[in-house]
């Protein structure tokens, strides 16, 4: 039986094949909460600057937090390590692995070293065993899943694994689970592959005891009321909760927030857009709803099947909003079946969809502008509109297997454009070496700032939802009562630089808390985005730790500052917090979206750093702020590493 105050960490050294389970300091649960928060602390403490990301000293953390295993956890799991790009690599994913891990008596796994042959890790009720995985190496995700299930012969064993892409150290590959859940796109799968760790399997039989059950029930009922599709005040909750994510493709297109043809345009033909949006997807392909552990939303995820045509019988799931946005307009492809199959193939090979979509779009633009020719692309007609479907699907396989032209794309946009040169750098939509996501920036300054300052590379879940809530639902006085000093009507204007720094700071802090509990950021819409009281009550009821609301919010600030400290210690500075070159230099005049002017962007960046009390010149957190948060040792560590920490 687990209580939730003291969290445990299983340390695994793959070089020596030793494992040991030890407790973490008790005060960490109040200070960093858990999950993403504790990963940030561990990463800062245990991965020194200059560590080789693919070397044995990089540590891969996989862990949950104190609320996991209760119905608030939503199965969220954080994976973290130092990214091969040098940034923090942290990602959250859903499913059922998290609760199973906690019920096995383990909250975190820290994996060091490198195995000399492929292995997998089998965890069962606190016991860890490193097993041979030579028969799994090279297998696709779905095959690995089936083989492991057969081997362990228990339908409730939960897995995390990598596909061939992770094994081959393909840029940005994430860690997968339950076939279509993935997390850690900043390179956690690559690092797992470099350690020759194919999979982790876990089964637990323990229960999770909450400290105050009556209090928990009350808090849960209140929480449920706020997020249930039937009772929520937030307009987006029922639409997202039932239609699922693809619904926003059309909404974004109506607002000019779609990146068409590698972001050369900001709007897509409406007829084409309707073909890839939620309605045809629901009518034609969806077979049933799917959910992560104990999620109160009915159908955020779905299972689909193509029943006729050239892809007949293709099954998969979890067509996320970003997928039709990036495989659709970005490549000018209005064939929903092709989108489903491309995404399904990325899942099978363990690839990151954003990496694949943006490198393909980069390749297409290079091809159309004559920088790449058929001689470079192994004879493939790599054009927008995807005329050669079979060739494109084969190219996805080649990226994962690093064959021929695929090997160039497997290095990611930034690296590939460096190799090719000839002005192709401009077509690479990257920040900190990492490809963008699906949300456009020229018409939403909040998104532009958010992706640029994110410590893991572009990742909208760091401040989810990407646009602040509907200003009609919350008055500024209500916000002030919640401790947020903000003019929401200005903050909600897409192309107004005012208030963006402040609102982004609040969103980043509060989402860090939600991901540290852990709970799911995709539940947050409009009003809930500014009000963390439901989670505060639940945290107190589950752990029995009494903290006041302001102190609870501070935990999120600590996490944000630790992430930033890790980033600056690896050498990233203000100059790296930049939008991609294309957004900053190219207008899209026909739709009225001028480029993101440098002076406007600098103003927002100043606002953001000032609100966080970071150095305006370097973005290094200032000493007095770190000390105020109880992170004085972090400031000292930065100084020892030769950083200029302002007072």
């Amino acid at each position, binding site marked *: 039986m687990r209580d939730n105050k003291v969290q445990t960490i299983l340390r695994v050294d793959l070089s020596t094949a030793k494992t040991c389970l030890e407790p973490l300091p008790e005060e960490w649960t109040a200070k960093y909460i858990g999950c993403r928060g504790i990963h940030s602390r561990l990463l800062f403490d245990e991965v020194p600057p200059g560590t080789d990301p693919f070397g044995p000293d990089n540590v891969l953390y996989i862990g949950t937090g104190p609320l996991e295993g209760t119905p608030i956890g939503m199965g969220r799991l954080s994976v973290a390590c130092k990214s091969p790009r040098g940034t923090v690599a942290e990602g959250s994913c859903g499913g059922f692995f998290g609760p199973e891990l906690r019920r096995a008596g383990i909250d975190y796994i820290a994996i060091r070293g490198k195995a000399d042959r492929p292995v997998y890790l089998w965890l069962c009720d606190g016991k860890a065993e490193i097993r041979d995985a030579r028969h799994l190496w090279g297998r696709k995700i779905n095959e690995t899943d089936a083989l492991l299930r057969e081997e362990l012969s228990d339908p409730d064993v939960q897995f995390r694994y990598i596909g061939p892409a992770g094994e081959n150290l393909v840029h940005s590959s994430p860690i997968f689970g339950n076939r279509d859940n993935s997390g850690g796109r900043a390179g956690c799968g690559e690092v797992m592959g470099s350690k020759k760790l194919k999979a982790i399997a876990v089964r637990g039989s323990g229960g999770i005891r909450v400290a105050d059950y009556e209090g928990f029930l009350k808090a849960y009922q209140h929480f449920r009321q706020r997020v249930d*599709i039937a009772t929520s005040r937030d307009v987006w909750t029922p639409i997202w909760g039932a239609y699922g994510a693809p619904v926003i493709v059309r909404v974004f297109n109506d607002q000019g927030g779609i990146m068409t043809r590698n972001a050369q345009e900001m709007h897509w033909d409406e007829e084409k857009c309707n073909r890839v949006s939620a309605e045809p997807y629901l009518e034609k392909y969806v077979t049933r*709803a799917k959910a992560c552990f104990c999620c109160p939303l009915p*159908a955020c995820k779905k299972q689909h099947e193509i029943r006729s045509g050239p892809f007949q019988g293709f099954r998969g799931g979890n067509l996320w909003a970003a997928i039709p946005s990036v495989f659709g307009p970005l490549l000018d492809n209005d064939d929903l079946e092709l989108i489903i199959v491309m995404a399904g193939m990325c899942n099978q090979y363990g690839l990151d969809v954003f990496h694949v979509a943006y490198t393909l779009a980069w390749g297409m633009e290079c091809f159309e502008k004559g920088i790449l020719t058929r001689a470079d692309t192994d004879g493939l007609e790599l054009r927008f509109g995807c005329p050669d479907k079979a060739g494109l699907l084969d190219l996805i396989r080649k990226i994962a297997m690093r064959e021929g032209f695929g090997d160039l794309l497997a290095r990611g946009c930034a690296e590939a454009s460096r190799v090719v040169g000839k002005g192709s750098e401009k077509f690479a939509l990257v920040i900190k070496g990492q490809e963008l996501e699906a949300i456009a920036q020229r018409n939403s300054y909040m998104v532009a700032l958010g992706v640029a300052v994110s410590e893991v590379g572009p990742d909208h879940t760091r401040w989810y939802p990407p646009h602040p809530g509907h200003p009609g639902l919350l008055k500024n006085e209500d916000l002030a009562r919640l401790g947020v000093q903000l003019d929401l009507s200005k903050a909600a204007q897409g192309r107004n630089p005012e208030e963006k720094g402040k609102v982004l700071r609040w969103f980043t802090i509060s989402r860090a808390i939600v991901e540290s509990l852990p709970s799911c950021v995709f539940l947050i819409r409009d009003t809930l985005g500014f009000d963390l009281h439901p989670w505060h009550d639940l945290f107190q009821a589950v752990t029995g730790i009494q903290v006041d609301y302001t102190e609870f919010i501070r935990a999120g600030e600590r996490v944000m500052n630790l992430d930033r400290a890790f980033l600056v210690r690896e050498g990233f500075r203000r100059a790296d917090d930049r939008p991609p070159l294309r957004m900053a230099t190219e207008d899209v005049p026909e739709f009225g979206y001028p480029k993101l002017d440098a002076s406007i962007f600098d103003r927002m960046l100043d606002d953001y750093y000032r609100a966080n009390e970071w150095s305006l010149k370097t973005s290094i957190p200032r000493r007095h702020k770190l000390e105020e948060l109880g992170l004085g040792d972090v400031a000292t560590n930065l100084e020892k590493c030769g950083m200029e920490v302002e007072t």
Partner: protein
Amino acid sequence: MKKIHVIEDLCNGCRLCQTFCSSLKNGVFNPDDPQTGIRILKMPGEEQDIPLVQCSGACVRSIGEDDQPTCVTLCPTGALVYGNLDFARARRLELAAARKTHGLFKVVAPWKWPFAWAKPRKGTGKGEEGGKER
């Protein structure tokens, strides 16, 4: 006689019913507790989830105010129905009729979809082009 009836097609496999049910007696969340009145059988390959009920519906305690078993109150999709056989039959017919009007009801029960203003219909407004495509 009132019973908990199951509409398998709507179950999304979240295990909220199972997890909550296990906690009602002693405040410990353990879906594997043998006393748990409802279990979700997961089919391999994430293809289907089947709720197995071994409970009369007389809860240890009900956390909803609507006098229903906790699992039925909490089910997000409407896959669990509490009532007599006629009621369960009527719900199934309602679902089958709704499914003919919109694909949304493949994933959520019409009695769970909240707002009349937002109840989607085929081929209205901007969705028309997509409708023709089908």
